[in-house]
């Protein structure tokens, strides 16, 4: 298995960002439950939170996982005739 240094650097950067996001979520776990309860009680603006959080996490963590596999050499086939 050959490690790709460029992808590894990017994986580290996005991995750190993803880790930071998950740490923030961990710190605010009780708040997410509170926001859901408030939404159920009628404060409907909070409904956007569970829509926005997955989008942000997806972008950052998605980039991290892509670079992670790339760094490990798990790349897509480059030509169709290689199938």
């Amino acid at each position: 298995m050959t490690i790709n240094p460029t992808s590894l650097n990017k994986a580290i950067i996005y991995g750190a960002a993803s880790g930071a996001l998950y740490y923030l979520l961990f710190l605010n776990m009780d708040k997410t439950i509170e926001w859901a309860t408030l939404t159920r009680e009628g404060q409907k603006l909070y409904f956007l939170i569970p829509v926005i959080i997955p989008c942000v996490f997806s972008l950052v963590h998605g980039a991290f996982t892509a670079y992670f596999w790339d760094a490990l050499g798990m790349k897509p086939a480059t030509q169709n005739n290689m199938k």
Partner: protein
Amino acid sequence: MMDSISFIELNAFNVTLLFIVGFIGGMVSGFIGSGGAFVLTPAMMTLGAPGIVAVASNIAHKFPKAIVAALKRHKYGHVDWKLGIIMGIFAELGMLAGKIVMSGIKDTYGDTGTSLYVSFIFVVVLAVVGGFVLRDAYKMYRAEQAGADVHEHKKTRLARWVQSVRIPGTMMYFSSLKAEVSVLFIVPLGFATGALASTIAVGGFIGVPGMMYVLGAPALMASATELVIAFVMGLGGTLLYAWDGVVDVRLAMIILAGSLFGVQLGAIGTTYVKDHTVKLVMGVIMITVLFSRFFYIPGYLSELGLMAPITDSTRDLLKAVGDGTLALALLLGAVIILGALLKGMAAHRKRHEQLAMADGIEE
């Protein structure tokens, strides 16, 4: 009822389990376009999440995952965005219709009635479509063994007919089909995909084969385009459930953490395999899932008084066997995908080395 909803406590065991289940579900979804929901929703319910929270949290992790996977597959030229968005819009309508049917059954026959209905739909759809997909995969495999050119995508007779029908004012060109098709054929397919998604949580079991056999899309493009449909449906579903305040974003994000690792790997896997491997994985998962549902049916029938009562312990045992079979289906899919990926990568590398060596000799 909504006020009584409670979110579960999270501990290291819960988090690890959800991460692993998310990874396997993601890998299958990235490869065949759908399927992960089978284990994710039951896994959350097993951990104690109320059914509606499990469904809502599953859908909240699904829509961003689907778009990440779709963008990845877009790079490989697999995605037909136009077809995906149009089918997705009609799938939303199908989801609403599916929910109305479910509510009607629930009002008349209760929760057991809906469970029996879901199992019945599972068995019928998976037997018909799964059998068809497996047969097709086998035929393609045989043709390849006989030396036929399997890279050339062959359209079914039905797809050729669908593409030959001209209905003025409804014709649209789709890149995945390399042909114009009337939107009137796409409407019922999208609708059925959504209706199935709201019934068994995996609409792709109609959407993907529908795109392949009815419209004439190659399997790789159909499975990738299904991700766009899943995104459109998932976004709509998430907005509805989030409005009701039943999405547990903590659960959704833990699943997403594992799932995105899996989805990327599944998507990479598709570039190393032939169309028949995608069909084989899809067919194997569908048929295994079908068998898992058989173990639930005696319990429901006995509860509804349609057969002699069975003891609670027998029902629990049958349910455990059913859950085990379901997990096996996903594991089996994951093993085939990983195997195909590693085998494909090794062959790819060998071919590159041979080409490099041949270049060296020529010089």
